[in-house]
């Protein structure tokens, strides 16, 4: 197949270009120059990813031949370096964690054997792009670019607030761009060894970033993340060993066709690796721990992109797993995670933990969709990835900005934000609306999902129905907190500078994704599904689109109408059982005057966190083991 030159160049540009800013940033100390570099690097990356989407011929998969032997050797050297680096980092482990270097070493040995001990045929096209990869690349380029743009301001503020921490910002920005490069690699790699290499780099970045602050807690959480991802890495290495034989090169090829028998096991192992990377139960705990990292890291690695690499690979495996018992169990792992994580999100008041559980929950849904693997569910999975990436990045960055203005990440401290910091509040509201409410993004995907599951997997449909309740609960109560207006609330400092730009663009993107999602579907997802299954999918009927558009329109028009009311109604203080003492203060017991104090419900004694974690982790563990055993 002939490759249009331009797209191929863009792919290689995306792979290599971020390394430039990465190396420069590792060397640069000055804040101004750093900002400039980050801005330019982010802009170029984003532009290239958009350009790639634009030039990619609709619906086609481009195979990119890359005949240079240097590339393969560079990858091998890189793998060795990464493994050695990780082993060296394990100096600081505790006794309980002694298994981690063992797993990493085992990975290395397996890989070494696959690489040198066996005679594998060369891979002709180590890279490829299909519409789904292009969509992923656009997400990484744009969202990743925006998060990078947001970071210098945030990190400067972070270090002002924490003078006790060592300033390792040079390393930080190096890792950010290194990570972007690796993510593009994950998305474009066809050669499994390459994919593994990029995969391991993301693990490395995540490990270093979680440990950024250098506190004891951060270090322990970093090792927990490393350990779990190393398990995934081991499965990955096994998959490579099994997938590559003397007759077939180790590529993702095996995953593109329904694979009975031998090909199922590598698929299951890769799916296992995907589960660890996307923090599915029973591995979710590392993602919660990862929330100690600076907020841009949480946004970039732990919600919008890196954890998506896990589900991305799982989605890629869908054709191989479709209709198998392994696929069924994989879907159940996702479904269980979806429900359990949603329940757990209800019990949290720490904003980043809520976001983390909701991320886990949404990734669970995507895994469930991939496990079922019908055109409809894959359509839903791709749309979920898109909406989630945009809205979640917005939410994380919003929480980061709030943290630096309000001084807290606790949702309870965000009361009245709409009155005190309207811009930030609107950013958060748009993000939250995008996450769960009709007619916005996520809900469209859920709608598609439920329809598909009703046909193909009733059990998952039931899990989905049950999970949607708590999802609604925890988002709505957060929303309620943001929009409640205490009397006498005054506007104060809102967002500034880079943060404002990044947040504004993300707000527009989220809104755009919600309003213009049919375009995204038509541009990327529908062609991809067509290419995958050879049959078009008409999920979005005209009448339904019309209804959704009408609902969206109502949401826009209604505020306008209600603010056009002829006269301001009489203002009265809230009902306080007659004990009003001006504004929303009341005369309480013993003659004391209290201001109204309201706390959301967390149902901690109803949804017992430990019990849910234990049960769901146990169940997911059983399912995961079953999934591998049945493969």
């Amino acid at each position, binding site marked *: 197949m002939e490759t249009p030159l331009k797209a191929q160049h863009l792919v290689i540009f995306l792979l290599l270009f971020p390394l430039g800013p990465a190396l420069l940033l590792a060397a640069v100390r000055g804040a101004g120059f750093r900002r400039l570099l980050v801005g330019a690097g982010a802009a170029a990356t984003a532009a290239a990813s958009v350009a790639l989407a634009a030039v990619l011929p609709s619906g086609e998969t481009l195979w990119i031949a890359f005949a240079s032997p240097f590339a393969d050797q560079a990858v091998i050297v890189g793998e060795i370096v990464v493994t050695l680096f990780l082993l060296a980092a394990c100096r600081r482990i505790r006794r309980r964690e002694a298994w981690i270097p063992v797993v990493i070493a085992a990975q290395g040995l397996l890989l070494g054997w696959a690489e040198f001990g066996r005679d594998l045929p060369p891979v002709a096209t180590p890279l490829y792009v299909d519409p789904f990869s292009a969509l992923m690349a656009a997400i990484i380029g744009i969202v990743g670019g925006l998060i990078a743009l947001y970071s210098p301001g945030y990190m400067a503020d972070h270090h002002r607030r924490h003078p006790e921490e060592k300033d390792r910002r040079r390393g930080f920005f190096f890792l950010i761009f290194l990570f972007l490069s690796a993510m593009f690699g994950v998305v474009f790699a066809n050669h499994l060894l390459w994919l593994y290499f990029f995969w391991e780099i993301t693990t490395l970045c995540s490990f270093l970033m979680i440990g950024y602050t250098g506190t004891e807690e951060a270090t322990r959480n970093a090792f927990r993340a490393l350990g779990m991802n190393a398990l995934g890495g081991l499965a990955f290495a096994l998959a490579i060993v099994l997938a590559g034989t003397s007759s077939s090169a180790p590529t993702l090829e095996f995953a593109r066709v329904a694979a009975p028998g031998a090909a199922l096991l590598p698929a299951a192992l890769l799916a296992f690796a995907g589960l660890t990377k996307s923090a599915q139960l029973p591995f979710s705990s590392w993602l919660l721990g990862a929330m100690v990292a600076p907020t841009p890291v949480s946004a970039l690695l732990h919600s919008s992109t890196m954890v998506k690499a896990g589900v991305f690979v799982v989605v890629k495996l869908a054709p191989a797993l479709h209709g198998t018992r392994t696929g069924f169990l994989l879907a159940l792992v996702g479904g269980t995670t979806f429900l359990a994580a949603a329940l757990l999100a209800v019990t949290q008041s720490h904003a980043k933990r809520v976001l983390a559980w909701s991320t886990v929950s949404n990734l669970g849904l995507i895994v469930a969709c991939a496990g079922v693997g019908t055109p409809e569910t894959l359509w839903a999975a791709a749309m979920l990835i898109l909406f989630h990436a945009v809205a979640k990045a917005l939410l994380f960055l919003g929480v980061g900005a709030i943290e630096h203005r309000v001084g807290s990440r606790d949702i309870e401290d965000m009361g009245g934000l709409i009155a005190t910091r309207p811009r930030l509040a609107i950013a958060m509201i748009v993000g939250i609306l995008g996450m769960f409410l009709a007619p916005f993004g996520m809900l469209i995907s859920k709608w598609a999902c439920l329809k598909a599951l009703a046909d193909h997997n009733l059990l998952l449909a039931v899990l989905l129905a049950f999970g949607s309740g708590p999802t609604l609960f925890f988002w709505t109560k957060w929303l309620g907190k943001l929009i409640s207006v205490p009397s006498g609330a005054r506007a104060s400092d809102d967002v500034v500078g880079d943060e404002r730009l990044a947040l504004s663009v993300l707000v527009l993107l989220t809104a755009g994704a919600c309003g213009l999602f049919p375009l995204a579907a038509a541009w990327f997802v529908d062609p991809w599904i067509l290419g995958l299954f050879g049959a078009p999918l008409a999920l979005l009927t005209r009448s339904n689109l019309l209804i959704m558009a009408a609902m969206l329109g109502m949401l826009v028009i209604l505020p306008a109408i209600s603010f056009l009311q002829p006269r301001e109604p009489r203002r*009265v203080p809230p009902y306080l059982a007659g004990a009003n003492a001006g504004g929303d203060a009341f005369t309480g017991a013993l003659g004391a005057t209290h201001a109204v104090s309201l706390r959301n419900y967390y149902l901690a004694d109803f949804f017992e966190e430990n019990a849910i974690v234990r049960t769901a982790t146990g169940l997911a563990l059983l399912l995961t083991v079953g999934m591998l055993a049945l493969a």
Partner: protein
Amino acid sequence: MAFFKKSPWLLHYDASSCNGCDIEVLACLTPIYDVERFGIVNTGNPKHADILLITGAVNVQNEEIVRNLYGQMPDPKVVVAAGACAMSGGVFQDSYNVLGGIDKVIPVDVYVPGCAVRPEAIIDGVVQSLAILERKAAELKRRGGSGEPEKPS
């Protein structure tokens, strides 16, 4: 239109009464008297109420609360003072802690005598207050609704 007459919603407040009138107010809601026949509902929320039905001699601690409740009721509204205490302080008028009738605090439209006031008398009083409510509603409409709420005298 005369819908105030057909749907008067009550707010009952006990501004330090002995309970005698209060249980008679509640008795009005129950099967034997059933004021829901007239569309009367005991709302329990000043913001939903049209009629403030108030019992008891106002004591010092209740003064502000009565004002608050009255202030939170949307216009048009009427006040019915039920029972001797609400009218004048009744048997407690001489006490050091009692201000006297409700009209010492907020304007009263209808006085309902009795100690304790009988349910029938309460019905009479509320029915009388409806005409006043209608009048106030018409007045409000005439002023085009832009006017200030009525100031307590």
